[in-house]
């Protein structure tokens, strides 16, 4: 990848106040792909769920391949109200990278690829794909935990990648 202008930070959020969700809104349509980097932890054991453009309908599905240190498993969730990548993390520092391809097009449904890294108990290292069955351009992404909160100081960073 060429240095500089093709990998541009759009926004960063550092969680506080025991936040249970984080939203990036007004995402410009000027890039080709989006990257979201999470680095942090949650107060218990939790998945990290994603929705686009405030859509709370059953328009999401996901498939994952993951390992917990003793077994490798694969599973999927269909007709869900959010992308659930199945890559639970916990109270120790964890990282995931979410890559949304061609997010601004208004012709196709949207895919998101995940790579996730956690060594916490009941957590996983793995990969996942999420699908949003909408042709709308993505202009907002909401992340939420499944029943816990983000530990203060967790960071979400949104990057835009422009085709050279």
């Amino acid at each position, binding site marked *: 990848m060429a240095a*500089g202008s093709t*990998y541009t930070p759009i926004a960063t959020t550092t969680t506080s106040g025991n936040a249970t969700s984080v939203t990036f809104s007004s995402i410009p349509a000027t890039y080709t792909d989006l990257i979201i980097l999470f680095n942090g932890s949650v107060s218990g054991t939790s998945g990290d769920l994603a929705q686009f453009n405030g859509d709370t309908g059953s328009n999401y599905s996901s498939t994952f*391949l993951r390992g917990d240190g003793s077994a490798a498993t694969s599973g999927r969730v269909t007709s869900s109200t959010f992308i659930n990548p199945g890559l639970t993390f916990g109270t120790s520092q964890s990282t995931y990278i979410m890559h949304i391809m061609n997010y601004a097009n208004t012709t196709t449904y949207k895919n998101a690829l995940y790579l996730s890294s956690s060594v916490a108990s009941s957590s*996983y290292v793995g990969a996942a794909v999420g699908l949003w069955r909408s042709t709308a351009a993505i202009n907002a992404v909401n992340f939420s935990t499944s029943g816990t909160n983000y530990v203060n100081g967790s960071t979400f960073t949104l990057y835009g990648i422009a085709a050279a």
Partner: protein
Amino acid sequence: MPNTYTLIASNTVGSGGVASVTFSSIPATYTDLLVKFSIRTSNSNVGQGLKVTYNGASAYVNRFLEGTGAAVSSGNGTDEFIGDIPGNTATASTFGNGELYMPNYTSSVAKSILIDAVTENNATTAYQTLTAQSYAITSAITSMSFASMGSGSPTLMQYTSFYLYGIKNS
């Protein structure tokens, strides 16, 4: 437009190989670090572990998910393992590729690192490894050193290459 994805240093191994490749004096001016690598080790196995140490210390926990073309498994460890790379009995001229991503490397909390590594050799066994690594030290990362695991003092072979990038979030 900000220069947010910047090559800090690179290293390509010359004739005869080397025991390790080290990036030192890593500046604290970025948010994240990314290393892209292409590697082959002189170890006699078809696949051999790659290890990394940060700041010369050892305080690691890892968890991996690995496929071999025939099976998939997951395990935990407390060593510096970050994935499998081709050994010198793998098909000639094949190198393993991958990348290591370390967010917030100057932070005062434990580091959570994601590593993605692959090999392919048109033979019976190859390795695709996703590794989660946790490094418990809370100081900023100023150096990292890569080496082959395994017995017999294996070297990183000629044409092995590493590229260290810094990424800024603003």
